[in-house]
């Protein structure tokens, strides 16, 4: 029999501590939509996504009602569009507009997969797609884009890194009148996972089934609340144990919702992504967990160690709770989406250099960081290269999502609203990496890649 304490614990988590399912993401393969005529190809894309995902939002809402747990986002990820562009040729923006139209028609929050995988080199489709990203993001509302420029197995494609510096800037410039939102929907990856349900980096990898349901859970608020209830005398081993127990409970819920959605939609269940994903809402911050562990403010010395423990404990707790864990699975540190990080960045406690160190031990990378509007493209490229190097050497996913705030400088802020939040323009190191970036070529795969 259920006992009252357990029931009240679950209800408190949902009602007071912002526990939710962050996203149900349906991955759809578009490989069978390829056509040598781009217009025909777009028609097939629209038809297939509409057919697979027409009930996604309604199913999500029904599950919300059945279990009383909010499901914040319903999203779609698709095969990297560069593969379709390779077959069809033509202007890739047509695909972006098609994705935007179908996203609107089925009612999802975002569609990810305007992507290219170029960690070892470009195909013609990749080049055309990357070149069109800024225009695609400026002319659509729901489309998200990502480019994988490196991997542990293949090294870092520095030609792609050089290009992406320019693309990020241009994406911001073309949307300067909309808070540079274009750059907030563009992620540059190293070791991109093929089954990530979180935006803006979600795409449906070529090794995935035709259609699949992936779930991303959330719950920084729950972890913080559990630590707040614990005694100050707990040592860090006990703190890690508390986090593990909570991560287990959160993930079990993700597993339940994912398997229910997969059953109702008649689509196989892929993975649960165990990430702690913050939102700008009060009490839903990863930075506040670190502060609860015992730091005066996120960004203080000790932040990296605390984050490493948090990230590891979340995985350990979550792994047993789910039959298949995947995606990014760890703690996210997107600055503008996290109330505690915004505050720490505003007062200068949290710097880009510290964030870079943090990305070596957590699940993603330099995420949602606002940089000065006059940052040259080669500095953005160099930021990407540094982050990719951390990912490549440590066999982990890293990513860069920086937003050049066009026309703004340090001290000013960008305001995206919603889950993307807001944040101050952060200080960057302006010494020039131009010569290195101009060299291009490939950084060879590290020794770690030779595992066979």
């Amino acid at each position, binding site marked *: 029999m259920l006992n009252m304490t357990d029931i009240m614990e679950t209800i408190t988590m949902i009602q007071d501590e912002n526990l939710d399912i962050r996203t149900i993401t349906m991955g759809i393969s578009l490989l069978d939509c390829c056509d040598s005529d781009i217009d025909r190809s777009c028609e097939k894309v629209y038809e297939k996504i509409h057919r697979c995902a027409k009930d996604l939002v309604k199913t999500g809402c029904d599950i919300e009602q059945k279990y*009383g747990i909010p499901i914040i986002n319903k999203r779609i990820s698709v095969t990297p569009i560069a593969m379709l562009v390779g077959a069809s040729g033509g202007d890739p923006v047509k695909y972006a507009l098609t994705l935007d139209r179908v996203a609107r028609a089925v009612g999802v929050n975002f569609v990810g997969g305007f992507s290219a995988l170029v960690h070892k080199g470009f195909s013609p489709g990749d080049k055309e797609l990357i070149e069109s990203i800024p225009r695609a993001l400026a002319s659509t509302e729901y489309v998200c884009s990502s480019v994988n420029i490196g991997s542990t197995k293949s090294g870092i494609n520095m030609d792609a890194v050089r290009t992406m510096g320019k693309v990020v800037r241009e994406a911001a410039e073309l949307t300067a009148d909309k808070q540079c939102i274009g750059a907030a929907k563009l992620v540059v990856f190293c070791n991109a996972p093929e089954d990530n349900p979180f935006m803006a980096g979600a795409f449906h990898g070529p090794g995935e089934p035709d259609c699949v349901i992936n779930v991303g859970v959330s719950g920084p608020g729950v972890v913080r609340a559990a630590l707040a209830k614990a005694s100050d005398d707990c040592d860090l081993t006990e703190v890690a144990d508390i986090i593990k127990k909570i991560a287990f409970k959160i993930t079990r819920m993700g597993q339940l919702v994912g398997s229910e959605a997969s059953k109702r939609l008649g689509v196989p269940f892929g993975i649960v992504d165990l990430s702690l994903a913050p939102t700008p809402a009060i009490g839903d911050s990863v930075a506040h967990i670190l502060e609860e562990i015992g730091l005066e403010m996120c960004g203080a010395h000790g932040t990296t160690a605390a984050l490493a423990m948090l990230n590891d404990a979340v995985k350990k707790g979550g792994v047993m709770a789910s039959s298949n864990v995947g995606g990014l699975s760890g703690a996210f540190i997107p600055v503008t989406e996290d109330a505690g990080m915004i505050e720490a960045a505003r007062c200068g406690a949290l710097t880009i250099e510290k964030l870079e160190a943090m990305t070596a031990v957590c699940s993603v990378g330099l995420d949602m960081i606002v940089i000065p509007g006059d940052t040259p493209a080669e500095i953005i490229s160099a930021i990407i290269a540094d982050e990719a190097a951390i990912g490549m050497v440590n066999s982990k996913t890293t990513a860069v999502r920086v937003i050049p705030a066009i026309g703004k400088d340090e001290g000013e802020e960008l305001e995206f609203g919603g889950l993307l939040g807001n944040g101050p323009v952060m200080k960057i190191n302006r010494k020039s990496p131009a010569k290195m970036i101009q060299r291009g070529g490939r950084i060879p795969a590290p020794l770690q890649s030779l595992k066979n």
Partner: protein
Amino acid sequence: MRAVITVIGRDMIGILAKVSTTCAEANANVIEVTQSVLQEFFAMVMLIDIEKMNCELGELQESLKSNVSGMTIHVMHEDIFNSMHRI
């Protein structure tokens, strides 16, 4: 299949009666009720059988909310508690 109804708020006369009546109208059988009143604070957990219910859980929650105003009411399928608290 069973669901859990929780009702929390300031105590007043007739809460249990109104909740049970609404359940009966939805053809949901009450299996177990735990209720406590601490000072003026009312908390109730009710387990119901929803096998033969004539509406969706969401609709039951809506009618409970309109029949018992001023209270925080949740209606949730029991699986969420089982999956979270039982291995």
